[in-house]
Protein backbone atom coordinates (compact mmCIF):
# COMPACT_ATOMS: atom_id res chain seq x y z
CA UNK A 1 0.00 0.00 0.00
CA UNK A 2 1.15 3.50 -0.71
CA UNK A 3 2.79 5.27 2.19
CA UNK A 4 5.20 8.08 2.88
CA UNK A 5 8.15 5.98 3.91
CA UNK A 6 9.55 2.82 2.46
CA UNK A 7 9.23 -0.61 4.08
CA UNK A 8 11.87 -1.17 6.73
CA UNK A 9 13.46 -4.02 4.88
CA UNK A 10 17.23 -4.36 4.48
CA UNK A 11 16.64 -6.45 1.36
CA UNK A 12 14.55 -3.73 -0.27
CA UNK A 13 15.64 -3.19 -3.88
CA UNK A 14 14.75 -0.54 -6.38
CA UNK A 15 14.10 -0.23 -10.08
CA UNK A 16 13.65 2.76 -12.31
CA UNK A 17 11.66 3.76 -15.36
CA UNK A 18 12.44 7.05 -17.08
CA UNK A 19 9.61 9.29 -18.31
CA UNK A 20 10.91 11.39 -21.19
CA UNK A 21 9.53 13.75 -23.78
CA UNK A 22 9.47 17.43 -24.57
CA UNK A 23 8.30 20.32 -22.44
CA UNK A 24 4.58 20.17 -21.62
CA UNK A 25 3.86 16.65 -22.82
CA UNK A 26 2.64 15.51 -19.40
CA UNK A 27 5.69 13.98 -17.73
CA UNK A 28 4.94 15.43 -14.31
CA UNK A 29 1.27 14.48 -14.55
CA UNK A 30 2.29 10.96 -15.45
CA UNK A 31 4.65 10.65 -12.48
CA UNK A 32 2.06 12.22 -10.20
CA UNK A 33 -0.65 9.79 -11.24
CA UNK A 34 1.11 6.75 -9.95
CA UNK A 35 3.49 8.06 -7.31
CA UNK A 36 2.73 7.34 -3.66
CA UNK A 37 4.52 10.56 -2.68
CA UNK A 38 4.08 14.04 -4.12
CA UNK A 39 6.54 14.28 -7.01
CA UNK A 40 9.85 15.70 -5.88
CA UNK A 41 11.24 18.43 -8.06
CA UNK A 42 14.97 19.00 -7.95
CA UNK A 43 16.92 21.59 -9.78
CA UNK A 44 20.55 21.99 -10.56
CA UNK A 45 22.03 24.97 -12.30
CA UNK A 46 24.56 25.18 -15.02
CA UNK A 47 26.69 28.06 -16.09
CA UNK A 48 26.58 27.13 -19.70
CA UNK A 49 27.24 28.43 -23.12
CA UNK A 50 24.13 30.13 -24.40
CA UNK A 51 22.22 29.16 -27.50
CA UNK A 52 24.53 26.29 -28.27
CA UNK A 53 23.04 23.89 -30.73
CA UNK A 54 26.10 21.76 -31.16
CA UNK A 55 27.13 19.14 -28.66
CA UNK A 56 30.79 19.73 -29.44
CA UNK A 57 30.69 23.46 -29.05
CA UNK A 58 31.19 24.96 -25.62
CA UNK A 59 30.37 28.32 -27.15
CA UNK A 60 31.51 31.78 -26.23
CA UNK A 61 28.84 33.56 -24.24
CA UNK A 62 27.51 32.12 -21.08
CA UNK A 63 24.30 32.01 -19.22
CA UNK A 64 22.92 30.25 -16.20
CA UNK A 65 20.36 27.62 -16.99
CA UNK A 66 18.38 25.43 -14.68
CA UNK A 67 18.28 21.70 -15.18
CA UNK A 68 15.15 20.44 -13.50
CA UNK A 69 13.93 16.90 -13.03
CA UNK A 70 11.09 15.47 -11.05
CA UNK A 71 10.56 12.03 -9.73
CA UNK A 72 8.10 9.89 -7.85
CA UNK A 73 8.01 6.48 -6.28
CA UNK A 74 5.71 3.47 -6.05
CA UNK A 75 6.26 0.56 -3.72
CA UNK A 76 5.53 -2.84 -5.17
CA UNK A 77 5.07 -5.53 -2.53
CA UNK A 78 7.38 -5.39 0.50
CA UNK A 79 10.72 -5.64 -1.20
CA UNK A 80 10.63 -3.62 -4.41
CA UNK A 81 10.26 0.08 -5.06
CA UNK A 82 9.80 1.54 -8.50
CA UNK A 83 11.16 5.04 -9.14
CA UNK A 84 9.86 7.17 -11.98
CA UNK A 85 12.17 9.91 -13.17
CA UNK A 86 11.00 12.67 -15.46
CA UNK A 87 13.81 13.95 -17.66
CA UNK A 88 14.54 17.66 -17.88
CA UNK A 89 12.08 18.96 -20.46
CA UNK A 90 14.68 20.75 -22.49
CA UNK A 91 17.42 18.26 -23.32
CA UNK A 92 19.89 20.96 -22.50
CA UNK A 93 22.32 19.04 -20.41
CA UNK A 94 22.74 15.58 -21.91
CA UNK A 95 24.89 14.06 -19.17
CA UNK A 96 21.92 14.47 -16.83
CA UNK A 97 19.89 12.25 -19.18
CA UNK A 98 22.67 9.67 -19.15
CA UNK A 99 22.65 9.78 -15.37
CA UNK A 100 18.88 9.34 -15.14
CA UNK A 101 18.84 6.53 -17.71
CA UNK A 102 21.78 4.58 -16.31
CA UNK A 103 20.45 1.29 -14.97
CA UNK A 104 16.84 1.99 -15.97
CA UNK A 105 14.53 -0.90 -16.81
CA UNK A 106 13.22 1.17 -19.69
CA UNK A 107 11.86 4.51 -20.73
CA UNK A 108 8.45 5.86 -21.65
CA UNK A 109 8.72 8.69 -24.17
CA UNK A 110 5.57 10.79 -23.97
CA UNK A 111 4.35 12.57 -27.07
CA UNK A 112 1.65 15.18 -27.62
CA UNK A 113 0.12 14.95 -31.11
CA UNK A 114 -0.42 18.72 -31.11
CA UNK A 115 3.34 19.27 -30.76
CA UNK A 116 5.08 16.09 -31.84
CA UNK A 117 8.32 17.93 -32.58
CA UNK A 118 8.73 18.56 -28.86
CA UNK A 119 9.47 14.87 -28.44
CA UNK A 120 11.93 14.51 -31.33
CA UNK A 121 15.01 15.09 -29.18
CA UNK A 122 13.89 12.43 -26.69
CA UNK A 123 13.21 9.89 -29.44
CA UNK A 124 16.58 10.69 -31.03
CA UNK A 125 18.29 10.28 -27.70
CA UNK A 126 16.90 6.80 -27.10
CA UNK A 127 17.43 5.72 -30.69
CA UNK A 128 21.02 6.95 -30.97
CA UNK A 129 22.62 7.60 -27.63
CA UNK A 130 21.16 5.16 -25.18
CA UNK A 131 20.74 1.41 -24.97
CA UNK A 132 17.74 1.65 -22.63
CA UNK A 133 14.63 -0.02 -24.14
CA UNK A 134 11.92 2.55 -24.81
CA UNK A 135 8.26 2.76 -25.68
CA UNK A 136 6.66 5.85 -27.22
CA UNK A 137 3.33 6.83 -25.74
CA UNK A 138 0.84 9.38 -27.04
CA UNK A 139 -0.63 11.26 -24.10
CA UNK A 140 -4.42 11.55 -24.51
CA UNK A 141 -4.88 15.01 -23.03
CA UNK A 142 -8.66 15.00 -23.42
CA UNK A 143 -8.98 11.24 -23.34
CA UNK A 144 -9.30 11.02 -27.11
CA UNK A 145 -6.81 9.82 -29.72
CA UNK A 146 -6.89 12.47 -32.46
CA UNK A 147 -4.59 10.77 -34.92
CA UNK A 148 -4.22 7.08 -35.73
CA UNK A 149 -1.09 5.67 -34.11
CA UNK A 150 0.28 4.67 -37.50
CA UNK A 151 0.30 8.31 -38.55
CA UNK A 152 2.11 9.22 -35.36
CA UNK A 153 4.64 6.46 -35.98
CA UNK A 154 5.29 7.84 -39.42
CA UNK A 155 5.58 11.44 -38.22
CA UNK A 156 8.07 10.41 -35.55
CA UNK A 157 9.92 8.16 -38.03
CA UNK A 158 9.91 5.43 -35.40
CA UNK A 159 11.78 2.21 -36.10
CA UNK A 160 9.55 -0.84 -36.47
CA UNK A 161 10.79 -2.43 -33.24
CA UNK A 162 9.75 0.50 -31.05
CA UNK A 163 6.31 -0.03 -29.48
CA UNK A 164 3.88 2.88 -29.83
CA UNK A 165 0.94 3.10 -27.45
CA UNK A 166 -1.42 5.68 -25.99
CA UNK A 167 -2.33 6.54 -22.42
CA UNK A 168 -4.07 9.16 -20.35
CA UNK A 169 -1.39 10.55 -18.05
CA UNK A 170 -4.05 11.70 -15.55
CA UNK A 171 -5.35 8.18 -15.05
CA UNK A 172 -3.29 5.97 -12.70
CA UNK A 173 -4.52 2.73 -14.27
CA UNK A 174 -3.75 3.97 -17.75
CA UNK A 175 -0.26 5.01 -16.64
CA UNK A 176 0.25 1.61 -15.00
CA UNK A 177 -0.64 -0.07 -18.31
CA UNK A 178 1.83 2.15 -20.14
CA UNK A 179 4.57 1.28 -17.65
CA UNK A 180 3.60 -2.36 -18.04
CA UNK A 181 4.22 -2.00 -21.77
CA UNK A 182 7.72 -0.67 -21.00
CA UNK A 183 8.48 -3.63 -18.72
CA UNK A 184 7.13 -6.13 -21.25
CA UNK A 185 9.20 -4.51 -23.98
CA UNK A 186 12.29 -4.76 -21.78
CA UNK A 187 11.49 -8.44 -21.14
CA UNK A 188 11.12 -9.10 -24.86
CA UNK A 189 14.45 -7.42 -25.51
CA UNK A 190 16.14 -9.44 -22.79
CA UNK A 191 14.47 -12.84 -22.86
CA UNK A 192 14.69 -15.20 -19.91
CA UNK A 193 18.09 -16.89 -19.92
CA UNK A 194 17.82 -20.40 -21.29
CA UNK A 195 19.04 -23.44 -19.36
CA UNK A 196 21.99 -23.67 -21.76
CA UNK A 197 22.99 -20.08 -21.18
CA UNK A 198 22.85 -20.58 -17.43
CA UNK A 199 24.94 -23.75 -17.64
CA UNK A 200 27.57 -21.80 -19.53
CA UNK A 201 28.16 -19.52 -16.53
Amino acid at each position, binding site marked *: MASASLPDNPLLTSAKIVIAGGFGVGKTTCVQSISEIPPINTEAWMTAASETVD*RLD*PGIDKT*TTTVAMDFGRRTIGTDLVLYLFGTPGQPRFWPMW*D*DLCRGAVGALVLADTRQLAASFPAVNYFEQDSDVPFVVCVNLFDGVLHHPLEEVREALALAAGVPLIACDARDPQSVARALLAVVEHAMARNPRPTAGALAAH
Partner: protein
Amino acid sequence: MRRILIVGAGQSGLQLGLSLLAEGYDVTIMSARTPDEIRSGWVMSTQAMFATALQTERRYGLDLWQDQAPRIEGLHVSLSAPPGERALRIPCPLDEPAQSTDQRLKMATWLELFEQRGGTVHYQGVTTADLDGLTRLGRYDLTIVAAGKGDLVGVFDRDPLRSVHTAPQRGLAVAYVHGMTPDPLLPVPHVSFNAVPGLGELFVIPALTVSGPCEILFWEAVPGGPLDLWAERRDPAEHLKLTLDLVRRYTPWIYDRCVDVELTDGRATLSGRYTPTVRRPVAELPSGGLVLGMADVVVANDPITGQGSNTAAKCAYSYLGSILERGDQPFDREWMGQTFERFWTGAGEAVTGWTNAMLQPLPPHVQQLLGAAAENPTIARRFANGFSDPNDFQEWFMTPEAADRYLASVATG
Protein backbone atom coordinates in the same frame (compact mmCIF):
# COMPACT_ATOMS: atom_id res chain seq x y z
CA MET B 1 47.68 12.52 1.78
CA ARG B 2 46.38 15.29 -0.45
CA ARG B 3 42.97 14.87 -1.98
CA ILE B 4 42.36 15.88 -5.55
CA LEU B 5 39.11 15.95 -7.46
CA ILE B 6 39.17 15.78 -11.23
CA VAL B 7 35.96 16.42 -13.16
CA GLY B 8 36.18 14.72 -16.55
CA ALA B 9 37.57 11.37 -17.65
CA GLY B 10 39.29 12.05 -20.96
CA GLN B 11 42.94 12.15 -22.01
CA SER B 12 43.95 14.92 -19.61
CA GLY B 13 41.78 14.04 -16.61
CA LEU B 14 42.58 10.34 -16.59
CA GLN B 15 46.26 10.78 -17.40
CA LEU B 16 46.62 13.25 -14.54
CA GLY B 17 44.49 11.08 -12.24
CA LEU B 18 46.48 7.92 -12.93
CA SER B 19 49.81 9.75 -12.60
CA LEU B 20 48.75 11.30 -9.29
CA LEU B 21 47.64 7.90 -7.98
CA ALA B 22 51.08 6.56 -8.84
CA GLU B 23 52.57 9.44 -6.85
CA GLY B 24 50.51 8.51 -3.81
CA TYR B 25 47.73 11.10 -4.02
CA ASP B 26 44.11 10.40 -3.11
CA VAL B 27 42.27 11.05 -6.37
CA THR B 28 38.57 11.17 -7.18
CA ILE B 29 37.31 11.41 -10.75
CA MET B 30 33.83 12.40 -11.86
CA SER B 31 33.05 10.69 -15.15
CA ALA B 32 29.87 11.35 -17.12
CA ARG B 33 29.98 7.81 -18.46
CA THR B 34 30.90 4.32 -17.26
CA PRO B 35 33.66 2.32 -18.98
CA ASP B 36 31.05 0.17 -20.74
CA GLU B 37 29.18 3.24 -21.94
CA ILE B 38 32.40 4.76 -23.25
CA ARG B 39 33.39 1.55 -25.00
CA SER B 40 30.04 1.12 -26.71
CA GLY B 41 29.48 4.83 -27.34
CA TRP B 42 30.18 7.17 -30.24
CA VAL B 43 33.73 7.92 -31.34
CA MET B 44 35.06 11.05 -29.70
CA SER B 45 38.18 12.19 -31.51
CA THR B 46 40.94 11.34 -33.96
CA GLN B 47 43.59 11.43 -31.20
CA ALA B 48 46.81 10.94 -33.19
CA MET B 49 49.49 11.35 -30.55
CA PHE B 50 53.07 12.21 -31.37
CA ALA B 51 56.26 11.26 -29.56
CA THR B 52 56.47 14.14 -27.08
CA ALA B 53 52.95 13.45 -25.82
CA LEU B 54 53.35 9.66 -25.89
CA GLN B 55 56.47 10.07 -23.78
CA THR B 56 54.44 11.68 -20.99
CA GLU B 57 52.19 8.60 -20.91
CA ARG B 58 55.13 6.19 -21.07
CA ARG B 59 56.69 7.70 -17.96
CA TYR B 60 53.74 6.34 -15.98
CA GLY B 61 53.28 3.09 -17.89
CA LEU B 62 50.03 4.25 -19.48
CA ASP B 63 50.88 3.53 -23.12
CA LEU B 64 49.10 0.17 -23.04
CA TRP B 65 48.47 -0.01 -26.79
CA GLN B 66 52.00 0.60 -28.01
CA ASP B 67 52.23 -2.88 -29.54
CA GLN B 68 48.76 -2.98 -31.11
CA ALA B 69 48.22 0.52 -32.47
CA PRO B 70 49.69 1.16 -35.94
CA ARG B 71 53.05 2.91 -35.75
CA ILE B 72 52.61 6.09 -37.75
CA GLU B 73 55.93 6.78 -39.43
CA GLY B 74 55.24 10.13 -40.98
CA LEU B 75 52.91 12.57 -42.68
CA HIS B 76 52.01 12.63 -46.32
CA VAL B 77 51.01 16.15 -47.29
CA SER B 78 49.17 16.77 -50.54
CA LEU B 79 47.74 19.91 -52.06
CA SER B 80 44.67 19.49 -54.18
CA ALA B 81 44.18 21.69 -57.24
CA PRO B 82 40.61 21.93 -58.47
CA PRO B 83 38.90 19.84 -59.52
CA GLY B 84 40.75 17.05 -57.80
CA GLU B 85 44.25 17.10 -59.20
CA ARG B 86 47.19 16.55 -56.90
CA ALA B 87 49.35 19.66 -57.27
CA LEU B 88 52.01 18.87 -54.69
CA ARG B 89 53.01 15.81 -52.69
CA ILE B 90 55.38 15.88 -49.70
CA PRO B 91 56.32 12.76 -47.74
CA CYS B 92 57.35 13.97 -44.27
CA PRO B 93 59.00 11.32 -42.09
CA LEU B 94 58.80 11.44 -38.29
CA ASP B 95 61.84 10.74 -36.11
CA GLU B 96 59.68 8.70 -33.74
CA PRO B 97 56.33 7.05 -34.50
CA ALA B 98 52.96 8.57 -33.62
CA GLN B 99 49.98 6.44 -32.57
CA SER B 100 46.22 6.86 -32.45
CA THR B 101 44.25 4.68 -30.05
CA ASP B 102 40.47 5.14 -30.14
CA GLN B 103 39.57 7.01 -26.97
CA ARG B 104 36.63 4.68 -26.47
CA LEU B 105 39.12 1.87 -25.95
CA LYS B 106 41.69 3.95 -24.14
CA MET B 107 39.49 5.91 -21.74
CA ALA B 108 37.34 2.90 -20.85
CA THR B 109 40.47 0.91 -19.98
CA TRP B 110 42.13 3.80 -18.16
CA LEU B 111 39.00 4.39 -16.11
CA GLU B 112 38.91 0.73 -15.07
CA LEU B 113 42.63 0.87 -14.31
CA PHE B 114 42.09 3.99 -12.23
CA GLU B 115 39.51 2.19 -10.09
CA GLN B 116 41.63 -0.96 -9.80
CA ARG B 117 44.52 1.14 -8.57
CA GLY B 118 42.43 2.59 -5.77
CA GLY B 119 41.08 5.77 -7.34
CA THR B 120 37.49 6.74 -6.59
CA VAL B 121 35.12 7.33 -9.50
CA HIS B 122 31.65 8.84 -9.33
CA TYR B 123 29.58 8.48 -12.45
CA GLN B 124 27.60 11.57 -13.26
CA GLY B 125 27.56 14.64 -15.42
CA VAL B 126 28.66 17.45 -13.15
CA THR B 127 26.67 20.67 -13.06
CA THR B 128 27.95 24.02 -11.90
CA ALA B 129 25.78 23.54 -8.82
CA ASP B 130 27.68 20.30 -8.13
CA LEU B 131 31.00 22.05 -8.55
CA ASP B 132 29.90 24.75 -6.14
CA GLY B 133 28.75 22.18 -3.56
CA LEU B 134 31.81 19.97 -3.98
CA THR B 135 34.28 22.80 -3.44
CA ARG B 136 32.25 24.08 -0.49
CA LEU B 137 32.37 20.62 1.08
CA GLY B 138 36.04 21.19 1.83
CA ARG B 139 36.81 17.56 1.12
CA TYR B 140 39.30 18.20 -1.65
CA ASP B 141 42.53 20.17 -1.55
CA LEU B 142 42.27 20.87 -5.27
CA THR B 143 39.49 20.63 -7.86
CA ILE B 144 40.39 20.45 -11.53
CA VAL B 145 37.92 20.66 -14.40
CA ALA B 146 38.97 18.52 -17.35
CA ALA B 147 35.63 18.06 -19.10
CA GLY B 148 36.29 20.05 -22.24
CA LYS B 149 33.41 18.76 -24.35
CA GLY B 150 30.69 19.56 -21.86
CA ASP B 151 28.80 22.60 -20.69
CA LEU B 152 31.00 22.95 -17.64
CA VAL B 153 33.59 24.95 -19.60
CA GLY B 154 31.06 27.78 -19.27
CA VAL B 155 32.29 28.54 -15.74
CA PHE B 156 35.61 29.67 -17.21
CA ASP B 157 35.71 33.13 -18.79
CA ARG B 158 36.94 33.48 -22.33
CA ASP B 159 40.29 35.23 -22.51
CA PRO B 160 39.80 37.79 -25.28
CA LEU B 161 43.52 38.56 -25.55
CA ARG B 162 44.44 34.96 -26.24
CA SER B 163 41.35 33.99 -28.24
CA VAL B 164 41.50 34.86 -31.93
CA HIS B 165 38.18 33.44 -33.09
CA THR B 166 34.56 34.14 -32.29
CA ALA B 167 33.06 31.46 -34.54
CA PRO B 168 33.87 27.89 -35.57
CA GLN B 169 36.55 27.78 -38.29
CA ARG B 170 35.75 24.32 -39.63
CA GLY B 171 32.89 21.86 -39.72
CA LEU B 172 34.19 18.48 -38.57
CA ALA B 173 33.26 15.06 -39.86
CA VAL B 174 34.96 11.91 -38.63
CA ALA B 175 34.39 8.32 -39.78
CA TYR B 176 36.28 5.24 -38.56
CA VAL B 177 36.55 2.64 -41.33
CA HIS B 178 37.94 -0.80 -41.98
CA GLY B 179 39.10 -1.90 -45.43
CA MET B 180 41.23 0.97 -46.72
CA THR B 181 44.16 -0.16 -48.83
CA PRO B 182 47.72 1.16 -48.28
CA ASP B 183 48.92 4.26 -50.12
CA PRO B 184 50.84 2.89 -53.15
CA LEU B 185 53.19 5.92 -53.11
CA LEU B 186 53.97 5.66 -49.38
CA PRO B 187 53.05 2.15 -48.24
CA VAL B 188 53.85 2.59 -44.54
CA PRO B 189 51.37 3.78 -41.89
CA HIS B 190 51.22 7.57 -42.08
CA VAL B 191 48.86 10.48 -41.55
CA SER B 192 47.65 11.69 -44.91
CA PHE B 193 47.05 15.45 -44.87
CA ASN B 194 45.23 16.65 -47.97
CA ALA B 195 44.58 20.36 -48.28
CA VAL B 196 41.85 21.55 -50.65
CA PRO B 197 42.68 25.27 -50.72
CA GLY B 198 39.81 27.47 -49.65
CA LEU B 199 37.48 24.58 -48.96
CA GLY B 200 39.02 22.46 -46.23
CA GLU B 201 41.21 19.47 -45.50
CA LEU B 202 40.95 15.69 -45.50
CA PHE B 203 42.97 13.65 -43.04
CA VAL B 204 43.45 9.90 -43.11
CA ILE B 205 44.80 8.57 -39.83
CA PRO B 206 45.71 4.95 -39.10
CA ALA B 207 44.36 4.03 -35.67
CA LEU B 208 43.47 1.22 -33.32
CA THR B 209 39.78 0.94 -32.53
CA VAL B 210 37.69 -1.51 -30.50
CA SER B 211 37.50 -3.92 -33.45
CA GLY B 212 41.20 -3.68 -34.37
CA PRO B 213 43.35 -1.53 -36.65
CA CYS B 214 41.40 0.92 -38.83
CA GLU B 215 41.67 4.23 -40.65
CA ILE B 216 39.99 7.47 -39.68
CA LEU B 217 38.62 9.60 -42.52
CA PHE B 218 38.37 13.13 -41.20
CA TRP B 219 37.05 16.10 -43.17
CA GLU B 220 37.65 19.64 -41.97
CA ALA B 221 35.24 21.83 -43.93
CA VAL B 222 35.38 25.61 -44.22
CA PRO B 223 31.95 26.73 -42.94
CA GLY B 224 29.50 27.52 -45.70
CA GLY B 225 31.67 25.94 -48.40
CA PRO B 226 30.86 22.93 -50.55
CA LEU B 227 32.54 20.51 -48.13
CA ASP B 228 30.46 21.75 -45.22
CA LEU B 229 27.70 19.18 -45.14
CA TRP B 230 28.02 18.58 -41.42
CA ALA B 231 25.82 21.16 -39.73
CA GLU B 232 23.35 18.47 -38.71
CA ARG B 233 24.06 15.10 -37.22
CA ARG B 234 23.53 12.41 -39.81
CA ASP B 235 22.83 8.73 -39.82
CA PRO B 236 26.23 6.90 -39.84
CA ALA B 237 25.69 5.23 -43.23
CA GLU B 238 24.74 8.55 -44.82
CA HIS B 239 27.68 10.23 -43.09
CA LEU B 240 30.07 7.71 -44.65
CA LYS B 241 28.47 8.04 -48.07
CA LEU B 242 28.85 11.84 -48.03
CA THR B 243 32.41 11.52 -46.76
CA LEU B 244 33.30 9.23 -49.65
CA ASP B 245 31.49 11.40 -52.21
CA LEU B 246 33.70 14.33 -51.17
CA VAL B 247 36.80 12.12 -51.18
CA ARG B 248 36.05 11.00 -54.73
CA ARG B 249 35.47 14.52 -55.93
CA TYR B 250 38.29 16.42 -54.23
CA THR B 251 40.97 13.85 -53.38
CA PRO B 252 40.58 11.00 -55.88
CA TRP B 253 44.02 9.58 -54.97
CA ILE B 254 42.53 8.79 -51.55
CA TYR B 255 39.30 7.49 -53.04
CA ASP B 256 41.29 4.85 -54.90
CA ARG B 257 42.11 3.35 -51.50
CA CYS B 258 38.49 3.34 -50.35
CA VAL B 259 36.88 0.80 -52.66
CA ASP B 260 35.99 -1.64 -49.89
CA VAL B 261 35.62 0.57 -46.85
CA GLU B 262 32.93 0.08 -44.23
CA LEU B 263 32.32 1.72 -40.86
CA THR B 264 34.09 -0.05 -38.01
CA ASP B 265 30.90 -0.20 -35.94
CA GLY B 266 27.47 1.38 -35.49
CA ARG B 267 28.78 4.44 -33.64
CA ALA B 268 31.87 5.15 -35.73
CA THR B 269 30.98 8.68 -36.87
CA LEU B 270 31.25 12.11 -35.29
CA SER B 271 30.34 15.54 -36.56
CA GLY B 272 30.15 19.01 -35.13
CA ARG B 273 31.98 22.29 -34.86
CA TYR B 274 33.29 24.51 -32.12
CA THR B 275 34.93 27.84 -31.68
CA PRO B 276 38.63 27.71 -30.87
CA THR B 277 38.87 29.47 -27.52
CA VAL B 278 41.38 30.18 -24.78
CA ARG B 279 39.81 30.65 -21.37
CA ARG B 280 40.99 32.03 -18.07
CA PRO B 281 42.27 29.07 -16.07
CA VAL B 282 40.77 29.83 -12.68
CA ALA B 283 37.06 30.09 -11.99
CA GLU B 284 35.48 31.22 -8.74
CA LEU B 285 32.16 29.63 -7.85
CA PRO B 286 29.37 31.49 -6.04
CA SER B 287 30.30 29.96 -2.67
CA GLY B 288 33.89 31.07 -3.11
CA GLY B 289 35.39 27.77 -4.23
CA LEU B 290 38.17 27.92 -6.81
CA VAL B 291 38.58 25.45 -9.65
CA LEU B 292 41.42 25.07 -12.13
CA GLY B 293 40.64 24.28 -15.76
CA MET B 294 42.88 22.04 -17.82
CA ALA B 295 43.53 21.04 -21.42
CA ASP B 296 40.67 21.81 -23.84
CA VAL B 297 38.57 23.35 -21.06
CA VAL B 298 40.94 26.30 -21.20
CA VAL B 299 42.82 25.84 -24.49
CA ALA B 300 40.54 24.49 -27.22
CA ASN B 301 42.14 24.59 -30.66
CA ASP B 302 40.75 23.50 -33.99
CA PRO B 303 41.72 19.88 -34.75
CA ILE B 304 43.36 20.89 -38.05
CA THR B 305 46.79 20.26 -36.53
CA GLY B 306 45.69 17.15 -34.65
CA GLN B 307 46.91 18.56 -31.37
CA GLY B 308 43.95 18.12 -28.99
CA SER B 309 45.07 14.91 -27.33
CA ASN B 310 48.72 15.95 -27.53
CA THR B 311 47.99 19.21 -25.76
CA ALA B 312 45.87 17.33 -23.21
CA ALA B 313 48.73 14.95 -22.42
CA LYS B 314 51.23 17.79 -22.16
CA CYS B 315 48.87 19.74 -19.92
CA ALA B 316 48.39 16.71 -17.66
CA TYR B 317 52.14 16.28 -17.39
CA SER B 318 52.77 19.96 -16.76
CA TYR B 319 50.06 20.18 -14.09
CA LEU B 320 51.39 17.00 -12.49
CA GLY B 321 54.80 18.63 -12.12
CA SER B 322 53.27 21.74 -10.56
CA ILE B 323 51.19 19.66 -8.12
CA LEU B 324 54.15 17.52 -7.05
CA GLU B 325 56.38 20.56 -6.57
CA ARG B 326 53.74 22.25 -4.46
CA GLY B 327 54.16 19.63 -1.73
CA ASP B 328 51.93 20.45 1.22
CA GLN B 329 51.42 24.12 0.41
CA PRO B 330 47.92 25.27 -0.47
CA PHE B 331 46.64 25.06 -4.03
CA ASP B 332 45.54 28.68 -3.95
CA ARG B 333 44.57 31.09 -6.69
CA GLU B 334 48.11 32.25 -7.25
CA TRP B 335 49.40 28.70 -7.61
CA MET B 336 46.58 27.86 -10.02
CA GLY B 337 47.45 30.83 -12.21
CA GLN B 338 51.14 29.93 -12.20
CA THR B 339 50.34 26.32 -12.99
CA PHE B 340 48.43 27.33 -16.09
CA GLU B 341 51.08 29.85 -17.20
CA ARG B 342 53.73 27.15 -16.98
CA PHE B 343 51.69 24.96 -19.31
CA TRP B 344 50.86 27.92 -21.56
CA THR B 345 54.46 29.00 -22.05
CA GLY B 346 55.69 25.41 -22.26
CA ALA B 347 53.20 24.15 -24.84
CA GLY B 348 49.85 25.93 -25.04
CA GLU B 349 50.92 29.19 -26.62
CA ALA B 350 52.93 27.68 -29.47
CA VAL B 351 50.29 25.12 -30.39
CA THR B 352 47.57 27.76 -30.32
CA GLY B 353 49.52 30.16 -32.54
CA TRP B 354 50.49 27.49 -35.03
CA THR B 355 47.01 25.96 -35.20
CA ASN B 356 45.34 29.33 -35.74
CA ALA B 357 47.84 30.06 -38.52
CA MET B 358 47.07 26.76 -40.25
CA LEU B 359 43.36 27.68 -40.33
CA GLN B 360 44.09 30.68 -42.53
CA PRO B 361 44.88 30.61 -46.24
CA LEU B 362 48.55 29.63 -46.32
CA PRO B 363 50.71 32.79 -46.47
CA PRO B 364 53.41 33.02 -49.17
CA HIS B 365 56.26 32.08 -46.84
CA VAL B 366 54.49 28.86 -45.81
CA GLN B 367 53.76 28.01 -49.42
CA GLN B 368 57.43 28.59 -50.12
CA LEU B 369 58.45 26.34 -47.21
CA LEU B 370 56.14 23.54 -48.35
CA GLY B 371 57.40 23.85 -51.91
CA ALA B 372 60.95 23.57 -50.60
CA ALA B 373 59.97 20.60 -48.40
CA ALA B 374 58.76 18.73 -51.48
CA GLU B 375 62.33 18.93 -52.80
CA ASN B 376 64.23 18.70 -49.55
CA PRO B 377 63.59 15.83 -47.07
CA THR B 378 65.32 17.75 -44.27
CA ILE B 379 62.64 20.42 -44.38
CA ALA B 380 59.90 17.82 -44.70
CA ARG B 381 61.22 16.00 -41.63
CA ARG B 382 61.33 19.18 -39.62
CA PHE B 383 57.72 19.92 -40.58
CA ALA B 384 56.58 16.46 -39.45
CA ASN B 385 58.45 16.63 -36.15
CA GLY B 386 56.82 19.97 -35.43
CA PHE B 387 53.61 18.05 -34.82
CA SER B 388 55.36 16.42 -31.89
CA ASP B 389 56.74 19.69 -30.52
CA PRO B 390 55.08 22.75 -32.07
CA ASN B 391 57.44 25.05 -30.15
CA ASP B 392 59.89 24.39 -32.97
CA PHE B 393 57.67 26.13 -35.55
CA GLN B 394 58.48 29.47 -33.95
CA GLU B 395 62.09 29.03 -35.06
CA TRP B 396 61.47 28.59 -38.79
CA PHE B 397 57.82 28.45 -39.83
CA MET B 398 55.67 31.08 -38.20
CA THR B 399 57.04 34.30 -39.68
CA PRO B 400 58.41 35.27 -43.11
CA GLU B 401 61.68 36.36 -41.47
CA ALA B 402 62.19 33.04 -39.72
CA ALA B 403 61.31 31.17 -42.93
CA ASP B 404 63.84 33.20 -44.94
CA ARG B 405 66.55 32.57 -42.38
CA TYR B 406 65.81 28.88 -42.30
CA LEU B 407 65.67 28.45 -46.08
CA ALA B 408 68.95 30.32 -46.39
CA SER B 409 70.58 28.10 -43.79
CA VAL B 410 69.30 24.93 -45.45
CA ALA B 411 70.54 26.17 -48.85
CA THR B 412 74.06 26.88 -47.56
CA GLY B 413 74.08 23.93 -45.10
